[in-house]
C-alpha cells in the first residue's frame, strides 16, 4: 500500500509538508555526519601530506616516518603487543565464557559481574594497579623479593589483557549461548567422544564469535594508549607515539602521519570483522532446542577454580586501586587517609562534574541521533541511505586519538567559524558521541529491522504522518534498546581518554584525563582516587539503569510477554 492510494486533497498536502520535513531531517543528519565525521577525517589525511607550514609535500612525512628506526619500531611494537594480547585474551575469555554458559558451576552471576569491572574504568587503571603489585617496589615484589620486570612488553600485555577481557567475554558468551541441543544429542547418539564433540560441534558453532572477539580485542589494544603510557617504560607503541608527537611536541604533521598509519590495522580489523559477520548464518531456528549443560563434577570444579582465579585477579586490581587511594604512602605507610581525594590538580572536582555533564549530554544527544539516524536510513529509503549508512558506521574504525587530532585540525583552524567550539564542553560531547556512534547506530538499525514495515505502510494509508508513527509506535517498541544505548554512551564517555586528551581546555577538564595527568605528574595515589570516583559513578548509573529498565520493560513490552 502506498500514499498514492489516498484520494482526497488535504491529506496529500499534509503528505507534501511531511515529505519536506522528512527531507529536512535527512539533510540535517547528513550535515551532522559530514561536518563531524567526514570533514575532520579528510583534514587528518591532508595534514599528513603537508609540512609544518601547510605546503604539499606528498609522501615525504611517511618516508621520514618509516626511515626513522626509533619511530618505526613503534609499529612493530604495536603489532607485537596487540597480537600477544589478542591471543592471550581470547583464550582466557573463551574458557571463562565456556564456564559461564556450558557448566553448572556455582555463582555464575557473581562471575558475570566481576568480569565486567574493567568496563567501568579508564584503561590506564590496569597499568597503575600492575605497578602497585608487580612494580620494582610493588607489594608482591617486596614480599617475594622477585622482580618480574613489569615495565615494557610484559606489563603492557598483562594490563591490556585485563582491560580487554570483558569485551571478549561478552562476545563469546553470546556466541556460546546460541547452541542447539539437538546437535549435541546427535553427537552423543553417534558415539562421539567429548573432545570430538568439542572440535566438531562447539568450535564450528562459535568460530565467528571467536573471530569477532579477536578483532575487537586487537582494535582495542592497538588504539589504546593509557596502558602503554603508564607501564610501557622505554617501550614505545604507535598510540603513545601520536600522544608524544602531538601533546609533547605539537608536531601535528607527524601526528597526522602516524594517525593514518594507525588507521590501517584498525580499519582492516573492522572490515574483516564485517565480512565475517555477513557470513554468519542463523544457528538458532524456531525448532532449536536450547542447550542445558549437564552436571559434571570434575569439569565444573575445574572451571570454578579457573573462574575464581581470573575473577579474583580482576577484583584484586580494583581492591589495590581502592586501597592505594586510601593509604598515606603506598607501600611505605599504610595509615588510612582521605587526603588523596582532596585533589589539588587544576579543576579538582570540577573535572568530575564536567565528566558527568559531558557523558550525560553525549548519552542523551547521541541516543537521539543514533536512533533517529538509524530510522532515517532504515525506514525512509532515499538515494542518500547508502552513503549515510557508510558514514554512520565509519567512526568505529577511527581510533580515538585520531579523532581527537582531527577535531583539533577542524576546530582550531585560523579563520574558521567552527573555532567557536574549540575549548568548549560541546566539542568534548561531540567527540564522545561520534567516537562511540557506530555500535548504537547498528543496534538501533537491528532493532528497527525487526519491526515490520507494515507499521509505516498502515500509518501512511491512514494519513498518519511518519513522525507520529515514529513517536507513538517505533519509539515505545524500541524503548529498552534506546535506554541501553544511552547507557552505552554514558559509560564509554566516562572512561574514554584518547580523543578527549587533545580537546580538554581550561574549564573543561575531564576526570579520565585528570587520571592521566595525575599519573604523568607522579601523583599516582590521586590518580587512583580519581579512578575510584569514575568507577563509583559508572556503577551508580548502571544500577539506575537496571531499575529504569525494569520500569520501561513493564510499561512498553507487555505485548512481548503476551504473545509468548
Amino acid at each position, binding site marked *: 500500500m502506498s500514499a498514492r492510494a489516498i484520494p482526497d486533497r488535504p491529506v496529500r498536502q499534509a503528505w507534501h509538508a511531511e515529505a519536506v520535513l522528512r527531507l529536512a531531517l535527512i539533510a540535517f543528519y547528513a550535515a551532522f555526519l559530514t561536518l563531524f565525521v567526514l570533514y575532520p577525517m579528510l583534514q587528518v589525511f591532508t595534514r599528513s601530506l603537508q609540512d609544518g607550514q601547510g605546503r604539499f609535500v606528498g609522501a615525504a612525512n611517511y618516508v621520514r616516518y618509516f626511515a626513522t628506526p*626509533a619511530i618505526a619500531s613503534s609499529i612493530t611494537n604495536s603489532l607485537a603487543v596487540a597480537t600477544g594480547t589478542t591471543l592471550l585474551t581470547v583464550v582466557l575469555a573463551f574458557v571463562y565464557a565456556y564456564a559461564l554458559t556450558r557448566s553448572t558451576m556455582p555463582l555464575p552471576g557473581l562471575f558475570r559481574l566481576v568480569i565486567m569491572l574493567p568496563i567501568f574504568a579508564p584503561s590506564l587503571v590496569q597499568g597503575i594497579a600492575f605497578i602497585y603489585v608487580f612494580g620494582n617496589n610493588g607489594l608482591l615484589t617486596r614480599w617475594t623479593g622477585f622482580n618480574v620486570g613489569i615495565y615494557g612488553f610484559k606489563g603492557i600485555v598483562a594490563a591490556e589483557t585485563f582491560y580487554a577481557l570483558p569485551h571478549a567475554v561478552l562476545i563469546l558468551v553470546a556466541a556460546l549461548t546460541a547452541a542447539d541441543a539437538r546437535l549435541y544429542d546427535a553427537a552423543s547418539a553417534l558415539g562421539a567422544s567429548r573432545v570430538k564433540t568439542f572440535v566438531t560441534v562447539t568450535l564450528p558453532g562459535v568460530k565467528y564469535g571467536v573471530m569477532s572477539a579477536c578483532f575487537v580485542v586487537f582494535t582495542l589494544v592497538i588504539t589504546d594508549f593509557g596502558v602503554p603510557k603508564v607501564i610501557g617504560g622505554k617501550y614505545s607503541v604507535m598510540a603513545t607515539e601520536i600522544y608524544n608527537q602531538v601533546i609533547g611536541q605539537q608536531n601535528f604533521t607527524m601526528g597526522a602521519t602516524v594517525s593514518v598509519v594507525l588507521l590501517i590495522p584498525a580499519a582492516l580489523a573492522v572490515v574483516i570483522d564485517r565480512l565475517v559477520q555477513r557470513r554468519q548464518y542463523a544457528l538458532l531456528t524456531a525448532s532449536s532446542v536450547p542447550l542445558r549443560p549437564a552436571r559434571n563434577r570434575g569439569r565444573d570444579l575445574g572451571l570454578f577454580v579457573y573462574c575464581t582465579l581470573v575473577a579474583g585477579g580482576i577484583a584484586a586490581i580494583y581492591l589495590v586501586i581502592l586501597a592505594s587511594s586510601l593509604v598515606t604512602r603506598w607501600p611505605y605507610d599504610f595509615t588510612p587517609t582521605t587526603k588523596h581525594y582532596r585533589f589539588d590538580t587544576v579543576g579538582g572536582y570540577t573535572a568530575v562534574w564536567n565528566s558527568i555533564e559531558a557523558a550525560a549530554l553525549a548519552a542523551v544527544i547521541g541516543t537521539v541521533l543514533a536512533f533517529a539516524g538509524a530510522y532515517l536510513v532504515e525506514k525512509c529509503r532515499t538515494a542518500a541511505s547508502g552513503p549515510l549508512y557508510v558514514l554512520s558506521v565509519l567512526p568505529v574504525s577511527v581510533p580515538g586519538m585520531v579523532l581527537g587530532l582531527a577535531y583539533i585540525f577542524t576546530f582550531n583552524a585560523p579563520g574558521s567559524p567552527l573555532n567557536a567550539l574549540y575549548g568548549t564542553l560541546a566539542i568534548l560531547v561531540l567527540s564522545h558521541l561520534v567516537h562511540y556512534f557506530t555500535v548504537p547506530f547498528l543496534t538501533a538499525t537491528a532493532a528497527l529491522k525487526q519491526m515490520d514495515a507494515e507499521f509505516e505502510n498502515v500509518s501512511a494509508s491512514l494519513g498518519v504522518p511518519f513522525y507520529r508513527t515514529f513517536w507513538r509506535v517505533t519509539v515505545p517498541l524500541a524503548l529498552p534498546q534506546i535506554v541501553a544505548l544511552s547507557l552505552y554512551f554514558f559509560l564509554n564517555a566516562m572512561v574514554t581518554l584518547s580523543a578527549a586528551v587533545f580537546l580538554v581546555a581550561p574549564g573543561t577538564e575531564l576526570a579520565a584525563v585528570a587520571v592521566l595527568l595525575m599519573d604523568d605528574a607522579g601523583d599516582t595515589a590521586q590518580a587512583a582516587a580519581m579512578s575510584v570516583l569514575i568507577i563509583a559513578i559508572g556503577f551508580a548509573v548502571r544500577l539506575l539503569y537496571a531499575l529504569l529498565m525494569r520500569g520501561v520493560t513493564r510499561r512498553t513490552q507487555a505485548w512481548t510477554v503476551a504473545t509468548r
Partner: protein
Amino acid sequence: MRRLWSLAVVLVVLGAAPAWAKDVVIVYTALENEQIADYKKAYDKALPNLDVKILRLSTGDIAARFMAEKDNMQADVIWGVAATNILIFKNAGLLEPYAPKGLDRVQPLFRDKANPPSWVGIDIYMSAFCFNTEVAKKHTLPAPASWADLTKPVYKGHVVMPNPASSGTGYLSVVSILQRLGEAKGWEYLDALHKNIAEYTKSGSKPCKDAASGERGIGVSFEYVAAKAKKEGAPIQMVLPSEGSGYDMEANALTRKGKSSAAAKQFLDWAITNEAMALYSKYFAAVAVPGFPVPEGLPKDISKVVFPNDFDWSAKNRDRVLAEWTKRYAK
C-alpha cells in the same frame, strides 16, 4: 525522555553560570599542581571579580600548546613558565609587553631588559637528585654525589629523568650539561647516562615521586619535590650535584590575544604582589623580590650550588638540542 532533557539543560546552565558573572582570564601555567591549589585560594580572595581558568601541563607541553594555538589564541596570561620558553614566545611576537604594578621591587636578573618588559620572572628552581635510601640498601647502591657518578655501571636501570622535550626540569638539566662540558663532551656524557636510564618521564616531578615510592632508585628532578618528599617521610635523600645544578627561571607574560586584557593585567599585577611572593617562597629557593625566607631543607644561597645558565643560548638552541636528543634517545 523529557525529564532527561530538562536535566541536561539545567546541567548546561549550571556549568556556564559562573562564566557569565565574572571576567574570564585564561591562564597557561607549568607550576606544580599542589602549589596552584595554594595560590588559587589567595587569588580567588584577592581578585573576586575574576574567573581564572587554568590549563596546567608540563613546561614543554604547555609551550607547544601555546605555540600551536597562535592563530586562534586561547591564553590571556602565561604564568610560571620557564624563561627559556618565554624567550621563544617573545621572539615569535606572541607576547604583549606589560609592566605590572610593583615591578620596581623585582630584582634586575628576574625581568626582561626591555621597557616595558615582555616577561617578568617569579622564581628560580634547579635540578636535584632524589635518592631512595631503602632501594639503595636493597641493591647496595652508593649515594651519588655528582652528575659524573650517575653514569657508573652500578646504577644501570635505577635512574629516571624527565624528557627534556616535555619537561622544563629535563631541559634545564640537559642544557646545563651541554653548557658546562661543551657540546661534544656533553653528548658523550648523555650517551653514557642513557645506558643507565630506566625511563624518561613526561613531567619533571615524576622522577622524584617514583624514587619516593621506591619504584626507582634515583630520580633526576628538582629541589622542591625532593625536599617535600623527604619532609613527608619518604626514605629520600636530596643530592645537589657537585658540578653545579642546572637551573631555570619561571616567568609571567601577557599574550597578544587582546581580549579581556584588563582582567589579564589585573592577574599579572597580583602575580608579583608580596602576597604572591610569600606563597612562591614556600616552594622555591629564590623568588623575584628579595627578603623572603628560604624553605626548610633548601640551600640558603643558591648562587653557590648552581651552574650559571645562559638563557639566550638555552632558548636559541632549544629546537636543535631537542631534535638531537630525540634522535639519540627517544625510542
